[in-house]
């Protein structure tokens, strides 16, 4: 895949405050890059900067290998499209709205008509074409906004939290339709979201942005299971972060011990290195007794249930194992195991599901 958009050493200053400082970011042709981060992290600023809607204070942006200069911005923007959190439709019919981007690009009416018909059909809004935009529901409006963006035949589609303002059923249906369209058309997309599930589901790659800086870019599974630093780990939902010291390392299996515990982790780490053991809650299995036979799970920790927090169809179980350990199990399992606060349990996890991260007082780095 060729790089279609690339930014080097860009910074963005707004109201005398540096809101963005990105060393390097690139989007490959045909991929969907999901940018996630907490509120105020600079996600939307990054999208605005890369789409040239907000001129960067420093740095350079390249489109198809060529630097985008001030005089090239309009030409560039006529090769992209954008969908924002709110549909921001014009006060006219749906048909007119879908053709807006094409009109900016000087397309003739027969091309516009054809494209409007195609994309309204693809997004199941053909019955709304004659309606005024003000008569639409939130979900319908966002479908029109997406159709408007796609009808312009963009080389890059910029999506700024396009699903976040929708109610749950509309959101699920639109994400599903978008996923289908994306797999059929392979439109290069930059998706900004604060929703981890959305990023996991849709992203070919995921970039984590915190405090205006890109902290990690990689495949979704890599970012979620091997976070680059503590803040990324916390953002991607790692609740259990335990400090320890590597005691031994044999055949790539490190033994890490800390305050009253010892765990084994698959990692090449020098002995004596101070680390954090990082565990995702869904990787932990809870058992009431020590398994009778042999098990492939290398780690078994005894703990007392401190808190049970219902989370939709799941249950978040907080154990005291000398340190707080968080497990995520189904509600059905919690009911079958008759879990209550104060109960003693065993938490097991495989050495390959844990991840080590060097502590700040050491040189911060990931260990494979």
């Amino acid at each position: 895949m060729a790089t279609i958009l690339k930014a080097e050493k860009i910074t963005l200053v707004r109201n005398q405050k540096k809101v963005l400082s990105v060393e390097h970011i690139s989007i490959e042709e045909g991929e969907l890059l999901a940018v996630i981060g907490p509120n105020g992290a600079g996600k939307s600023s990054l999208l605005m900067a890369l789409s040239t809607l907000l001129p960067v204070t420093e740095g350079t942006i390249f489109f198809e290998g060529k630097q985008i200069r001030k005089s090239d911005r309009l030409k560039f923007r006529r090769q992209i499209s954008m969908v924002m959190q709110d549909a921001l439709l014009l006060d006219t019919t749906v048909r007119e709205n879908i053709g807006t981007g094409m009109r900016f690009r000087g397309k003739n009416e027969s091309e516009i008509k054809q494209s409007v018909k195609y994309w309204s059909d693809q997004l199941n809004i053909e019955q709304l074409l004659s309606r005024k935009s003000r008569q639409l529901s939130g979900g319908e409006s966002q479908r029109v906004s997406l159709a408007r963006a796609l009808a312009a035949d963009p080389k890059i589609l910029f999506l700024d939290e396009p699903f976040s303002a929708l109610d749950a059923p509309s959101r699920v249906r639109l994400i599903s339709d978008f996923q289908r369209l994306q797999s059929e058309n392979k439109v290069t997309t930059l998706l900004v979201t604060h929703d981890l599930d959305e990023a996991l589901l849709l992203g070919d790659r995921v970039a984590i942005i915190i405090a205006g800086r890109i902290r990690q870019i990689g495949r979704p599974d890599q970012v979620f299971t091997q976070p680059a630093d503590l803040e990324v780990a916390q953002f991607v939902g790692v609740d259990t972060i335990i400090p320890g010291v590597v005691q031994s390392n044999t055949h790539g299996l490190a033994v890490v011990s800390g305050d009253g515990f010892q765990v084994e982790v698959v990692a090449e780490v020098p002995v004596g290195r101070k680390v954090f053991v990082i565990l995702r809650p869904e990787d932990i299995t809870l058992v009431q007794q020590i398994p009778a036979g042999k098990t492939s799970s290398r780690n078994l920790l005894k703990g007392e249930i401190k808190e049970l927090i219902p989370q939709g169809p799941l249950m978040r179980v907080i154990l005291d194992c000398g340190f707080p350990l968080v497990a995520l199990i189904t509600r059905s399992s919690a009911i079958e195991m008759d879990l209550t606060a104060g109960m003693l349990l065993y938490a097991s996890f495989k050495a390959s599901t844990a991840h080590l991260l060097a502590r700040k007082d050491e040189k911060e780095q990931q260990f494979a």
Partner: protein
Amino acid sequence: MKWIWEGIQQAFQLIVYGNPEVFQITLLSLKISGLATFLSLLVGLPLGTLMAFGKFPTRKFWVSLINTGMALPPVVVGLTVSIFLWRSGPLGDLRWMYTPTAIIIAQFIISVPVVTGLTTSTLQQLDPRLSYQLMGLGASRIQSVILLWREARLPLLAALMAGFGSVISEVGASMMVGGNLKGETRVLTTAIVLENSKGNFGFAIALSLILLGLAYMVNLFLTIAQQRTTSSD
């Protein structure tokens, strides 16, 4: 009190039978105020847009100045224009004093801040992301501004009507720079003042009714436009 009733009767006769002087005064008023409003639209719409979306250091100062201008006393405008157009004034050679042109200039100065100020506040009430959305779809700055005007068409129309309303009903500036010359610079408001001072209440009431009618038609037009927009929701 009989004379009041006679005055009203006379007014209706003047309007119904189409008195040529009343007709001429009304037409001149519409021409002068219409042209002044049109010119203020040409200046006020782009200027208001610049004030709404422009990013320059003195923007707030200019916006506050324009807002102050919205309450500009017509006699002060009349005085200023008179000083400039007076025979010995800086523009005296143009010989515009006591001509319709002088009234148009004065009314333009009165209505420009109204149209500009209301355009600014109207456009500032639009969702600021809409402009980014349009540019993100490939709109040039001009395409984007035209669509934003279209989005705000109803309040912008109201701004225009407010501008027209402010000049069709003013008397001070028109009297001072126009001189109220019969058949040349006599407009509805100056004629009403004159006829009132002469005790010719019938004529004055007739002109007042026409002025009120014009104000009503402006409001009716706005209401119809507003209702059409609302009913399509």
